[in-house]
């Protein structure tokens, strides 16, 4: 037998071997392939799988883990196999269960016949946290349905698949199941050359059809509502939205008016009539549901009430994630369908009835106790693992609130072979299957997501707690013909056409431009100061110390980390510690660390828009940067090296951003952000460094620093072929319309960019006006007037005033621009 020699399941049922260690018939072909491959090949295939998943950016975020926010997804090279024959029974069972749950949902939120006819106890509904009084009476609505339903199943000791969990409010896992299949496809032709399995594409096609039907044919009015990039399954949200070709939106992307939902896009508001949501029930609407929620849309519930929105699944669906329903499912099946339940469930006792409670209390040490509505954090008590005291406390808990608890028989679920650490081991596995409503029936996906426990014989399986996954294979006697050949070939095109881009995304692009520019310029400037500080005594020149003071003050102005170097406290500011604080102190507004953190935010929110390489690069940079700011050693050389490295990363990242989006699309927003920020930084530096009247040596020093901080020394030399003179530098950096980094040039560019935007008008818009003013203001200036100064004065007051005025124009432009494009309250 070879590689299965050491494989011994302690479970009462193993997927592959029967109790006499004979291979089950439907596993024979797959097993033969595994044995033929051998451990070495499995190892190689595992490595291939890891590579495919990582290359596709498949991640699963772990909450509360800052050091490693996104973890790679893992997949076992050995599939979980189910025979075609067994699957057809399971399919019927799932369809029946989906139908029943839908009927329960509609009944609970309308007539409540189940309660009135004593089929289910009122307590199981009213005492459940998922019962949404706000959608009372919605059950009558034609579009109030359980459209999409996921079921967790595991094989019980009798060899049948048992239902263990119903996922109804916002089921996850479909995206991972598809990606698992695509990844398996890449390795399985070689590993399992002759196995035919049922395909998944049909289900995706059905999903699109459902969306098309609900949207009335215009799928662009559907959206996947995500809690955002920090959600544990965000990968899946962006993945699914691109398969289904619908918008990926967050609550802030939408607003409600006219009793309907509207997408805020750059060109205006666009009606959305169908939402596939991944936000939990209570978080969908801060007006009527959880008021603290920032993930929903105020008014969504009322839009549903006014029949202007379809939801997959509707608010209120959490009531079905209710283990208190289990003991009554047979009665419900009889009541609604006159049928018996096809899929077995774990024996469950609801403690709200006296007889049941007594039984549970008498057998507590053998049972598993759960709350009926623990949908978020699953607190499970395994009676057999509890001490006498713990059992006693548990009985007190049950007596106090019997309605809230159920008890279940403890079941030993089946094991399946898993490849890890160079050998095959039996592991418990749970499969998640998916159903979609189609007319009066349900379509079941021919496959699913299998999760495998992290350790041998683990009682709990959850992606949050670690563990790996498997692909679910439904064997097929013949190769299925797939007509929808391209549906699974994910189109990497994300719609960034300027008119369709969502406001939130546009805003993120704008801020990405601003923060990235700020990060780059700040890094460069600090680096320059640190290097000069290190070389302070190198050149035997006294003046450099005074010019250093000017640069340090300029840093405080530039980063707005006041009082900073401008502090007039009794104790003089120590340059090194102040600079370290401006670099590392993330809690200090304006510090480099705080800018990087905001940049990181914008980056994460744009993850699905930017090239995959850019987020890879950013993650790497972020990791090194975090290590650096948490390290306590602070030698100037180390800091200098670290800043150089950060600078290189940022420049590379900027290049990738520039290459991955077209200008006519979203990139223009990035450019606008970049130009506004550059202009403001240049003005700030000019006010600190060019407005002071200095002696010749000092002046040389400061002008050199100014040009170097903009990487413009060579350009200056080429232009003027003279030594550094203040007049020339001002002319070059402020007035010269030809030099790309000059203020005049950036202002012109900005004015041009604005013309490409969707709300551009024949007349000047509110955000164009200040730029036009800046343009004409600049064009009338000449160096001589700028530099008028009285003999006794030490500051070029007139120049400072001019710069201050220009700064106001840019700030006004930025504010007006944000108002025009990022809020939609006047539309």
């Amino acid at each position, binding site marked *: 037998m070879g590689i299965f020699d050491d494989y011994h399941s302690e479970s009462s049922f193993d997927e592959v071997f029967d109790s006499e260690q004979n291979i089950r018939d439907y596993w024979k072909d797959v097993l033969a392939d595994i044995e033929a491959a051998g451990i070495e090949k499995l190892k190689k295939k595992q490595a291939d799988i890891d590579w495919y998943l990582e290359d596709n950016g498949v991640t699963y975020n772990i909450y509360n883990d800052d050091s490693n926010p996104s973890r790679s997804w893992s997949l076992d090279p050995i599939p979980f196999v189910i025979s075609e024959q067994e699957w057809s029974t399971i399919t019927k069972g799932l369809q029946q269960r989906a139908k029943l749950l839908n009927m329960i949902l509609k009944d609970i939120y309308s007539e*409540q016949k189940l*309660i*009135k006819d*004593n089929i289910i*106890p*009122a*307590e199981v509904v*009213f*005492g459940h946290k998922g019962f949404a*009084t*706000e959608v*009372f*009476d919605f059950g009558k609505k034609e579009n109030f349905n359980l459209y999409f339903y996921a079921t967790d199943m595991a094989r019980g000791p009798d060899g049948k698949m048992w239902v263990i969990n119903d996922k109804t409010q916002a089921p996850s896992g479909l995206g991972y199941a598809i990606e698992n299949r695509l990844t398996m496809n890449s390795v399985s032709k070689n590993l399992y050359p002759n196995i035919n399995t049922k395909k998944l594409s049909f289900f995706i096609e059905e999903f699109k059809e459902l969306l098309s039907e609900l949207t009335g044919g215009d799928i662009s009015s559907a959206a996947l509502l995500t809690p955002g990039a920090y959600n544990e399954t965000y990968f899946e949200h962006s993945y699914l939205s691109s398969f289904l070709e619908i918008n990926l939106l967050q609550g802030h992307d939408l*607003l*409600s*008016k*006219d*009793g309907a939902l509207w997408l805020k896009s750059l060109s205006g508001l666009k009606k959305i009539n169908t939402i596939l949501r991944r936000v939990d029930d209570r978080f969908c609407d*801060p*007006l*009527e549901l959880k*008021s*603290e929620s*920032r993930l929903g849309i*105020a*008014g969504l519930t*009322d839009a549903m*009430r*006014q029949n202007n929105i379809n939801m997959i699944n509707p608010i209120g669906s959490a009531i079905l994630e209710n283990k208190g329903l289990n003991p009554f499912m047979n009665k419900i099946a009889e009541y609604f369908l006159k049928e018996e339940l096809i899929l077995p469930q774990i024996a469950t006792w609801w403690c709200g*009835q*006296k007889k049941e409670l007594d039984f549970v209390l008498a057998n507590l040490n053998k049972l598993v106790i759960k709350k009926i509505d623990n949908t978020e954090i699953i607190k499970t008590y395994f009676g057999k693992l509890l001490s006498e005291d713990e059992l006693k406390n548990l009985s007190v808990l049950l007596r*106090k*609130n019997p*309605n809230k608890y159920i008890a279940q028989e403890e079941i030993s679920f089946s094991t399946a072979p898993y490849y890890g650490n160079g050998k095959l081991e039996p592991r418990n596995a749970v499969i998640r299957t998916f159903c979609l409503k189609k007319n009066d029936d349900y379509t079941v996906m021919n496959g699913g997501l299998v999760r495998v426990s992290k350790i041998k014989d683990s009682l709990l399986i959850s992606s949050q707690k670690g563990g790996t996954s498997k692909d679910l294979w439904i064997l097929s006697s013949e190769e299925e013909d797939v007509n929808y050949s391209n549906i699974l070939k994910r189109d990497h095109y994300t719609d960034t056409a300027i008119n369709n881009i969502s406001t939130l995304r546009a805003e993120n692009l704008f801020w990405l431009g601003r923060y990235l520019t700020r990060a780059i310029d700040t890094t460069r400037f600090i680096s320059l100061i640190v290097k000069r500080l290190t070389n302070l005594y190198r050149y035997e020149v006294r003046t450099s110390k005074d010019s250093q003071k000017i640069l340090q003050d300029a840093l405080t102005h530039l980063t707005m980390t006041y009082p900073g170097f401008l502090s007039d406290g009794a104790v003089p500011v120590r340059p090194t510690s102040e600079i370290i604080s401006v670099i590392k102190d993330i809690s200090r507004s304006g510090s480099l660390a705080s800018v990087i953190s905001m940049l990181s935010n914008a980056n994460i929110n744009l993850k699905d828009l930017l090239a995959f390489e850019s987020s890879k690069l950013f993650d790497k940079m972020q990791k090194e940067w975090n290590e650096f700011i948490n390290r306590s050693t602070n030698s100037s050389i180390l800091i200098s090296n670290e800043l150089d490295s950060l600078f290189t990363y940022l420049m590379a990242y900027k290049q990738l951003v520039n290459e991955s989006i077209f200008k006519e699309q979203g990139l223009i927003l990035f450019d606008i952000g970049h130009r506004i920020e550059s202009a403001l930084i240049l003005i700030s530096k000019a006010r600190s460094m060019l407005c002071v009247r200095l002696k010749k040596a000092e002046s040389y020093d400061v002008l050199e620093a100014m040009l170097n901080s903009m990487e413009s020394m060579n350009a200056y030399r080429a232009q003027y072929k003279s030594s550094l003179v203040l007049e020339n530098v001002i002319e070059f950096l402020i007035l010269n319309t030809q030099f790309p980094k000059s203020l005049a040039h950036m202002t012109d560019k900005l004015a041009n960019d604005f013309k490409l935007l969707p709300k551009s008008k024949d007349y000047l818009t509110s955000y164009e006006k200040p730029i036009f003013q800046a343009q004409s203001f600049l064009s009338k200036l000449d160096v001589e007037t700028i530099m008028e100064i009285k003999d006794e004065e030490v500051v070029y007051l007139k120049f400072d005033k001019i710069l201050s005025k220009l700064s106001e124009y840019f700030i006004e432009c930025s504010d007006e621009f944000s108002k025009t494009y990022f*809020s939609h*309250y*006047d539309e």
Partner: protein
Amino acid sequence: MIYTIYHKTSFHYQSIVNFSHNIARLKPKDTAYQKLLEFTMEIEPKVSESHEFVDMFGNTNTHMLIREPHQLLSVTGKSRVEIFPNLIEQHIEFLKSNSITYGAAVERLSKFHASDLSAKQFLFESELIPKGSDAIKEYVLESFHKERDLFEAAHEFMNRIFNDFKFLSGFSDITTPVETIFEAKKGVCQDFAQFAISALRTIGLPAKYMSGYIETLPPEGEEKLFGVDASHAWFAVYIPNAGWAEFDPTNNIIPKEQHILLGSGRDYHDISPLKGVVQSSGNSRLSVMVDVRREKKDLIKESASGQTQMQMQSQMQNQSQQ
């Protein structure tokens, strides 16, 4: 008798708000014991759209979208409500004579009884009212013995809250936990109501939060000033076989002709008079002005009662900012 009620709720925002969704619940409920004769609602600034609906608890909600820049939102409900004291007296008599023991009530509620079903919605912890601690349970059980008549027990329970708790405004707000109120033994009407509800639910009885108004009378010989009233809250407990019995622990009375019901629910959240979601920075402040007066013709003969009702100043804050 007929009451005229004026109830104005305002949000004052620190910065300008351009877009806000709000829900107002200011329309008094029609019940078997009171009838809404007239109702108007005035909103400042202008509402861009509004939608009225009745929720599961039978309260009328008005969803309003405001799109005019504003720093002050005020919603004023003006109503005329007729109260039927005879019917109330009859109902109380009915409750008394049909009441069952606490033990029998709990036993009956653990079984299926078609007429008890809708009351069971009020049996569970709600957003603002969790189940009480062992100490609360002990406190409430002093009045509720197995063999004791439920109406009498609830009456005594109200009496004890009135005597044991001190009326003190400013100590609490709507988010103050019931346990804190119980430990400090002080608060305002909504605290007493929520405490009682929590305690009753803890011992297995459905209990409802009642929100509305109470008539107050000026000192002898003085004219009543406009707007000196406040909104009020009390509780109702479900007596199987009989119905809902109302008690006002703040004034130690069974609500009769001086209580006007605005709405009821599981707790304050279900019936807050005004709540909204705005996009703005800074804080907001809420102010409330209430006036309740009996229409003249029957004031003369009623004023003999001479009882000065204690009022409450409720912190009607229910505002989230985004």
